[in-house]
């Protein structure tokens, strides 16, 4: 009698144990989702969706808008909209020095920036710091020309536009080397 009860109990336990495996199968691609499943959430982007934000500029000039500017115009705009933080000639601060001079080793556009297009891209998206995104493309071309001339990179009087800006050679470019460290025992 006692034996029978034990046997029944054991088999019930075994049964429920085994069926437990059946009721919780391992998730598998058979459930319909594979690593290549495409969900199609969201909505298609229209040209307008993209254009409202697509303001980036690449070193090859891709993304530069129409319009043009000169350092002469840039100097006036700089005095009005930038000098309060960067100084009248771009070195007096209190914010970042924008012009590199021989006497100072401070990193600035003239001695550290590898591409002139970055000056345009950054000013257009982020400056003036207290009113970002308020400059016209013409103003940004002129400010870029002013800063490149002040850094003695641009010949005085050069007009900057979508063709001339990417052609500007920056002295710092030759210093740039790609980080090729991948771990391992070397300290570099």
């Amino acid at each position: 009698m006692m034996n029978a009860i034990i046997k029944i109990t054991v088999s019930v336990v075994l049964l429920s144990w085994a069926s437990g495996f059946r009721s919780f199968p391992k998730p598998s691609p058979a459930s319909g989702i594979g690593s290549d499943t495409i969900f199609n959430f969201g909505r298609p982007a229209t040209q307008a969706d993209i254009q409202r934000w697509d303001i980036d500029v690449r070193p090859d000039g891709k993304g530069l808008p129409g319009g043009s500017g000169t350092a002469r115009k840039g100097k006036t705009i700089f005095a009005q909209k930038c000098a309060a933080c960067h100084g009248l000639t771009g070195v007096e601060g209190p914010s970042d020095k924008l012009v590199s001079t021989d006497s100072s080793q401070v990193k600035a556009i003239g001695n550290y920036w590898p591409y002139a297009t970055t000056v345009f891209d950054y000013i257009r998206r982020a400056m003036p710091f207290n009113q970002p995104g308020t400059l016209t493309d013409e103003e940004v071309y002129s400010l870029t020309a002013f800063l490149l001339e002040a850094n003695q990179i641009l010949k005085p009087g050069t007009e900057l536009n979508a063709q001339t800006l990417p052609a500007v050679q920056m002295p710092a470019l030759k210093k740039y080397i790609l980080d090729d460290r991948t771990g391992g025992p070397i300290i570099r």
Partner: protein
Amino acid sequence: MKPISGENPTLQPIKVSRRKLLGGAAAAALVLVEAPFARAVQVAVTQAELTDPTKIPGVPPGQVGTRSTFEKPVKKPSNISSRTPLQDLFGTITPSDLHFERNHNGVPAIDPAKHELVIHGMVEKPIVLTLADLKRFPSVTRICFLECSGNFRSGSEKLSPQDICGLTSQSEWTGVMLSTIFRQVGVDPKATWFLAEGSDAAVMTRSIPVRKGWDDAMIVYAQNGEAIRPEQGYPFRLFLPGYEGNMSIKWLRRIELSDAPYLTREETSKYTEPLKDGKIRYFSFDIDARSIITFPAYPAQVQKGWIEIRGIAWSGRGKVQGVEISTDAGKSWHPASLNGPILDKAHTGFRYVWQWDGRETELQSRVTDETGYLQPTYQELVTARGSKGGYHFNPITGWILKPDGRVLLSNG
């Protein structure tokens, strides 16, 4: 058998009316008012009862928990960043409100109902996604550290781990794999980079290799079990495990696939390392392995005898393989215990129990990651790079134990 009295107590509910309870309290108060002599005694009793939590009912359950008023861990803010109090934390998850912050023109206030992410460029089908859309995709949850690559400070022996390298924190992040979305938009096989752009006043941008997008990049909308915090990119951010923090663009609004990098200001003027030969190293994405002892560390005060040396170690290139401790300023090294589970690209806790004889000495920790990289000394880094700091500067940190129990930063 006669039961011993009290052995089998029968429990019976005792009915006490609310009126009776209140009446009792009121009676006690009456005593107070009526007998000035008894009042002094009564006040003393009340004081004792106030400090004995078993003598007064506690605060009822609430909607949001708070820290004990006796615990005051705080971030250390400057104009541009705010540092995690590493020396005040335990384990490896950073409480979300103590996660470090670094932004380039403030934290934007974004209404998720009005926020969109546009994915375009070298793709077959450009799309617009909202927070609600992102939450429909299969979700992935992962514990990872996030560190700003400009995370080294020195210059005083009175610097805490928070001051030295408080721009690293760890969270459990939840979101969607970027590869899932890349498949949907049909990324052009010729695309090698993508630009990620934020919706803050810096309109932050970084170029990221497409292979990272296919590998382990995520768009995350949750942190430690709740919606990601505004300082961390609400409603969602890019998250690139192991990469320098700046690249995990917060408040993400746009991803553009491209066949060339953009060389934005943040990957040229900033986040690059001048080297001793006059070169400038760029696109340093991986966070190099690093460790720091968070106890004992300034401003802790210690006593001689047993001390559990504790800290965290991490690597952007994979798992922590081991951490070693020196209690003699780097002359000899002993393996520390690691607190499992040891996760990929995650802060890993370490411990080493040691008996201090009370004489002045210096404690150090150094980590080896799974690539075999051994955390360098300060001098090794200075010799290799020619700079005494800058981005990706991850030297061994030493703590001097003074005989009076003070702990000071070595070579501070």
